[in-house]
């Protein structure tokens, strides 16, 4: 496939390369400091173009009268008309960053005109190394944008959150807009195809996206066609990862000494289920064009292994961006399409969890069992039978399969028509379709499987299980809008208005069955052998389809620039959605912002920009699911042999359900001096009417839950980013952000979330919210440091002489619980450094988060020396207290998880004009006191996604990895 694509790009190259020849013009391209290797020189209106060499020298054939265009990223292009000279040397001026054009909602603006909180990050600033997830390019780079990918699972989704929590419902991640397509999927963009990101942080910038803008907007612009002869570029990376941090457990000797049951072997279980994982990435792209017709085509191949055995993925992605003009260049046609095929091995994270806990004296294989053991039944693996929740980790990961396949296809067309000098009309139509299929197979010899609904290898009659899942989502967008520009000497006015329509549908199906005859083949591919087909009710089947979710919106915007230093932007969007209650379908989302550049007004010398600005906007948040306003009923069969059945209520209706609405006020200041640039934003936001599944009067509604708009969150915070050229060869930049979210109103005064779970710690809720207080509290009893009869003694926190520490008293006024930490960091820092020494460039990116804590659930469950657990290993960190023999959640298991890490270190060398080599380390080192595997914040409950239960490091985590990557970039 990769080869075919190469051929395809070569075909493009040939198609678009005209060979004109007249005279040879040569010369040198430089800036004030020296040559600019890689600068492009193009004959305007043709595909003829060359690239300057390592010393900035070029040579191109051109005829007299041709216009040569000299360009280089970050510099203002220059045009020179060829006369009869043979030598043209050119010194390019670095472009003023204030004139840098940022892509914003439905248009673009120069940086200096922006009056809301907007940050743009271009490819040079991206994180380096073997990065497989587009959002990871941005991690730590944008103040206020939290991007966390806990652990090292190459198939895990990344958590993205802007300016903290703005909703309790779904859609707490920013809206993604790719090349103008609202709500597009980041899964279908290869990281190497991204040109830039623009992050719309405040409500005034995001309000043009209306009902989906509340959690911010990330605008992605992909790389587009260049000018000139086809430029073929290859980049490749080879990466090796290994496990970074482990959780300390007992060695076999310690285990036996502490009373554990000795099964006569010594096994390092984690070592048995993990590996050094290799990843290779290959990208090929070709760009070219003649200024009117331009193209870029790319193919990206990724083969990634996870550190857990049998986890990883193979992915192929291709993208074409093509543009041309017609009707005397008044009509510009952009067409783009991308396709991704991803085959993933999801593995079973449970294997890592059981590896942490499994008896370290147990053998891997049945032949090494200390007593007679029927290994054949378990595929030759040893199993400690008759225990709760204890399975041979090697058997789990080696016997079973969990494979997914994802296909994503996007295509779209943009038409831009210049109706007149000052009127432009835009039409956009885009389609996206995604399919995901997952197959899970538990062999008949696997004791473990994921569900109590299946039999395991020990089940006498019902062994093995196969699961099939697939979903499909389709999405279409049609937009028509126009803009009108008016310029006078002291005024610049742009008015944009239009209509947007979007439709999505989604359907999914699941079924599972088991009871296979033996292990001759993997019966996932031959489910007709399942004996569950003979027994009523044993096959599990499920399917769902969402109705067409439609969004209908009109929007308008005004951008006004006065005297080139006063800026005003205002917008409004009126939007309706099917997802809301019948009585509340439409909402209106206004925004206004303004700013003034004081530098020219005050005549400040050495200051290019000093722009205070203020903005206000309203955005919405749609419910994450369909039908929340409607009554939903379940189904019960009538009983043995009966074909009848009945429905029963699962959710009460609420026809009044409406948008969640967020208002936000943002103050900002942008400062640009010669070597220094800085941006500070301070904001306050209020989200009201958030949608939650609320307890209602069971006697009245017939069910005790329905969705209501019930509550309010407010938050405030600041973001600072500073960039400084310390010397010509050393640039450093720092971004800082802090955010506090307070629960203003809620259905009750306080509530608890984050159930620890089995064994033995159900109904043990480790987080709390309370009206008027910050969200993210870890809540529980406080250990006083002493132990009596194996149980921790707790502090009488309120000092009333009565110790109340029952979990069912957690919300009572007299409870002796305390806030044991916050799940959400107080401060997050990203610090970038770029040093250039000769041909070498060193990028060191440090990242840290401070003030957050994590509930170390591995310790809470498995560190107490519980007697009846003596065939499980004990977690044994430096915080372990061997006196404690009784599992009881307390402050002992809540740890501060501040960290500072060298997240990304890259040393690259520009070997010559065409070749760049790099060595990268991700997760080079982490400074933290946290004893778990990964101190990164858990912004929501990883079990159920509840944003009110952050800070719980759940047991099913994938251990994080450190990776080393060799990279090459070669231009042909």
């Amino acid at each position: 496939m990769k080869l075919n694509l190469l051929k395809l790009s070569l075909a493009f190259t040939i198609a678009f390369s005209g060979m004109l020849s007249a005279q040879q013009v040569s010369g040198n391209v430089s800036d004030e400091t020296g040559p600019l290797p890689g600068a492009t020189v193009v004959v305007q209106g043709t595909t003829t173009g060359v690239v300057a060499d390592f010393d900035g020298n070029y040579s191109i054939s051109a005829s007299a009268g041709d216009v040569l265009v000299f360009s280089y990223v970050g510099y203002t292009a220059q045009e020179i008309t060829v006369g009869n000279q043979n030598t043209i040397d050119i010194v390019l001026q670095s472009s003023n960053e204030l004139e840098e054009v940022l892509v914003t909602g439905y248009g673009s603006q120069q940086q200096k005109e922006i009056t809301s909180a907007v940050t743009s990050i271009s490819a040079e600033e991206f994180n380096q190394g073997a990065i497989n997830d587009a959002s990871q390019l941005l991690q730590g780079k944008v103040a206020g944008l939290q991007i966390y990918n806990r652990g090292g699972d190459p198939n895990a989704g990344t958590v993205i959150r802007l300016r903290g929590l703005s909703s309790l419902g779904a859609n707490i991640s920013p809206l993604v807009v790719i090349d103008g397509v609202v709500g597009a999927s980041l899964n279908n963009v290869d990281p190497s195809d991204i040109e830039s990101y623009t992050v719309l942080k405040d409500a005034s910038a995001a309000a043009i996206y209306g009902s989906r803008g509340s959690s911010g907007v990330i605008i992605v612009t992909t790389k587009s066609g260049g000018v000139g002869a086809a430029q073929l570029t290859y980049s490749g990376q080879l990466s090796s990862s290994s496990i970074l941090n482990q959780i300390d457990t007992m060695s076999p000797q310690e285990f036996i000494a502490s009373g554990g049951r000795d099964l006569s072997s010594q096994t390092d279980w984690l070592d048995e289920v993990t590996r050094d994982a290799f990843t290779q990435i290959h990208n090929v792209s070709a760009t070219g064009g003649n200024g009117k017709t331009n193209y870029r085509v790319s193919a990206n191949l990724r083969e990634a292994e996870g550190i857990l055995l049998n986890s990883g993925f193979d992915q192929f992605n291709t993208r074409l961006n093509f543009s041309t003009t017609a009707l005397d260049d008044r009509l510009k046609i952009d067409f783009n399409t991308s396709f991704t095929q991803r085959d993933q091995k999801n593995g079973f994270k449970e294997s890592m969890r059981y590896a942490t806990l499994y008896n370290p004296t147990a053998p891997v294989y049945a032949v090494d069992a200390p007593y007679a053991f029927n290994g054949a039944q378990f595929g030759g693996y040893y199993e400690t039978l008759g225990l709760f929740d204890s399975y041979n980790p090697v058997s789990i990961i080696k016997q079973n399969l969990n494979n997914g396949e994802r296909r994503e296809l996007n295509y779209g067309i943009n038409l831009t028509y210049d109706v007149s000098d000052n009127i432009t009309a835009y039409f956009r139509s885009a389609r996206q379709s995604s399919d995901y299929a997952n197959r899970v197979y538990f062999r008949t010899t696997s004791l473990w499987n994921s569900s109590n609904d299946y039999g395991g290898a020990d089940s006498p009659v019902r062994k093995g299980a196969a699961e099939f899942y697939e979903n499909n989502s389709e999405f279409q967008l049609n937009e028509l809008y126009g803009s009108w520009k008016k310029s006078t000497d002291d005024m610049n006015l742009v008015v944009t208005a239009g209509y947007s329509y979007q439709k999505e549908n989604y359907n999914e199906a699941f079924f599972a069955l088991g009871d296979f005859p033996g292990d001759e083949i993997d019966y996932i591919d031959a489910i007709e052998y399942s004996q569950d087909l003979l027994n009523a009710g044993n096959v599990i089947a499920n399917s769902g389809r969402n109705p067409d979710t439609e969004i209908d919106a009109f929007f308008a915007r005004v951008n006004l620039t006065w005297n080139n230093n006063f800026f005003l932007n205002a917008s409004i969007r009126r939007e309706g959605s099917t997802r809301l209650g019948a009585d509340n379908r439409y909402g209106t989302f206004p925004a206004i912002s303004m700013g003034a550049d004081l530098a020219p007004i005050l005549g400040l010398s050495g200051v290019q920009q000093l722009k205070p600005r203020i903005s206000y906007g309203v955005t919405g948040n749609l419910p994450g699911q369909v039908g929340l306003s409607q009554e939903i009923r379940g189904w019960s069969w009538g009983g043995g042999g009966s074909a009848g059945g009945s429905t029963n209520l699962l959710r009460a209706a609420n026809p009044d359900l409406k948008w969640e609405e967020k208002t936000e006020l943002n103050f900002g200041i942008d400062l640009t001096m010669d070597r220094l640039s800085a941006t500070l934003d301070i904001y306050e936001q209020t989200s009201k009417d958030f949608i939650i599944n609320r307890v209602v009067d069971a006697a009245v509604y017939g069910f005790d839950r329905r969705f209501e708009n019930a509550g309010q969150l407010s938050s405030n915070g600041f973001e600072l980013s500073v960039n400084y050229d310390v010397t010509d060869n050393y640039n450093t930049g720092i971004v800082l952000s802090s955010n506090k979210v307070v629960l203003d109103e809620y259905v009750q005064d306080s509530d608890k979330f984050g159930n620890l779970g089995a064994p033995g710690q159900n109904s043990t809720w480790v987080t709390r919210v309370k009206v008027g207080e910050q969200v993210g509290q870890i809540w529980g009893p406080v250990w006083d440091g002493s132990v009596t009869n194996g149980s921790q003694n707790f502090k009488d926190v309120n000092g009333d002489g009565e110790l109340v520490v029952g979990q069912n008293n957690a919300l009572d006024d007299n409870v002796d619980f305390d806030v044991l930490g916050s799940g959400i960091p107080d401060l997050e820092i990203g610090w970038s450094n770029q040093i250039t020494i000769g041909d070498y460039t060193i990028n060191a990116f440090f990242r840290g988060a401070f003030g957050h804590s994590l509930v170390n659930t591995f310790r809470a469950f498995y560190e107490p020396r519980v007697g009846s657990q003596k065939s499980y290993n004990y977690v044994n960190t430096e915080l372990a207290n061997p006196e404690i023999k009784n599992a009881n959640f307390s402050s002992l298991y809540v740890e501060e998880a501040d960290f500072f890490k060298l997240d990304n270190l890259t040393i690259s060398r520009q070997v010559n004009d065409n070749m760049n080599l790099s060595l990268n380390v991700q997760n080079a080192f982490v400074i933290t006191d946290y004893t778990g595997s990964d101190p990164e914040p858990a912004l929501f409950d990883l079990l159920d996604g509840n944003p009110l239960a952050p800070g719980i490091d759940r047991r099913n985590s994938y251990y994080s990895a450190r990776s080393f990557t060799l990279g090459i970039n070669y231009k042909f």
Partner: protein
Amino acid sequence: MKTINKIILGIGLIGITYSCTDLEEELLGDLTSDFSLEGISTGGSGGGGDALTGVFNAVRNAGTANHGGYFSVQSVSSDEMAITQKGGDWYDGGIWLEMHRHTFTPANGPVTGTWSQQYGSIAEVNNAISNAGLDANQMAQAKVVRAYLHWRLMDLYGNIVIADGSGSSNQSSRSAVFNWVEGELLSALGMGSSFDLSGLSNSSLGTNDVKYRINQYSALGILAKLYLNAGVYTGTERYSDAAAAAGHIIDNGPYSLSDSGISVPNLGKRPAVSSDPDNLVGYAAIFAPNNENNPEIIWSVEYDEATAGGMNFHHMTLHYASQYTWNFEAQPWNGYVALEEFVNSYEAGDDRRKANFIAGPQLDYGGNALVDLASDSPTPEIVYSIGINELEPNGARTGGYRLGKFAFKQFARPNLDNDYPIVRLGDVHLMHAEATARAAGNWALALPEVNAIRARANVSALSSLTAEQFLAERGREMFQEASRRTDLIRFGKWNDSWWEKTNSDAYRTVFPIPSEQLTANSSLSQNTGY
């Protein structure tokens, strides 16, 4: 400006084209209120499949025989059984320890869930009453079921909301609920405003033996239970009415005690274990997986492993490894255990002792000893001991006999097949005996029926009887039938101490109103003491 007009026109046109959508959301993958209730509640045979299917499914779905709901709060709070904390397992925030020790709070999960579950089921009954086009007989059945579910709530929580479909959220006093439940039952029995057996001829309810539906006898059984406890509920005793209601069932109903003549094949038998009986006989047959035709059962909730799930006693009580005794599809949870003192109240030869408990060394299907490698004892063989070392924190993993009354079948799936009796003749006899004795103030009057029950269990007749002895006999007979809490309260023993439970305050005879519901319905007030 003409061009601008064109653009605006163009935008308008496209806008209109797409705006044709009315943004109406029609759910395609869910059952909604649009879905006709009558249309789906029909068809089939074998007890289900009529307009009342939803009504009786609602009882099954109300926590009748699974973990965490009605069964659990009725039973774990009594001296029958407990869920011991087994080291790292079953602490669960202390909810089951406080259930057993009567220290439950308004936030207790099972207390909360049981409330919501009953009201959810009542709502389904109301739905059928208003929408299912019930005939007079069906309507009477539905109203009896609704009254029965209200009885559960009133018995558990005291002052509750009467959910009669009017949408009112006002709390009624326990006596008012009693009166309403009584009125509903009397009305279904054709009796008008006061208890009068001669009214039965006007009743829309039938008299045929229909195990999964309500007839006059099951309605009278519920009424007898209500009257037997009337003193607790209202302060006014109704023992004569209780005796009359129960007596009518005994005299007229087509039911007989399941005695030695009643035998069903033992579906749990291991061919390799000769001590496993081939058949379950008499008392044991009432609760067997194949108990659907037992002559003693008046009204039972139908359970089925495939189509009527919700009975999980095997998972709730057995040790993990006991999976291999019965070849269960899935591993049990090692939770519920019978208390030593309770087990010891049975005489050695009592058939019910053998039927109600799983005891002693445990063997797998092939007759080999089961082992537990994490066991505290030096020998890993699993032996269910009658004694339990402690309730918490380190209750032995094999401590306590296990709940075996609803016998398990080989190869059982996660849901069991046994039907769960709500009204059965043995219980009716004991209610009749007790009510008669209490009405006359003479426990000796209960002796004939008590001795009939004892005879069926192969234990010798008593020659005299005290209240305490009667309670013990009722306990032995009704173990695991969610009756013990109510009985202990009626006999004034509920607040006493036993095993690891100390005396509890008098107000604990009703559970607290769940705090969630207090928040959701501001007109509810909390029960005294909480």
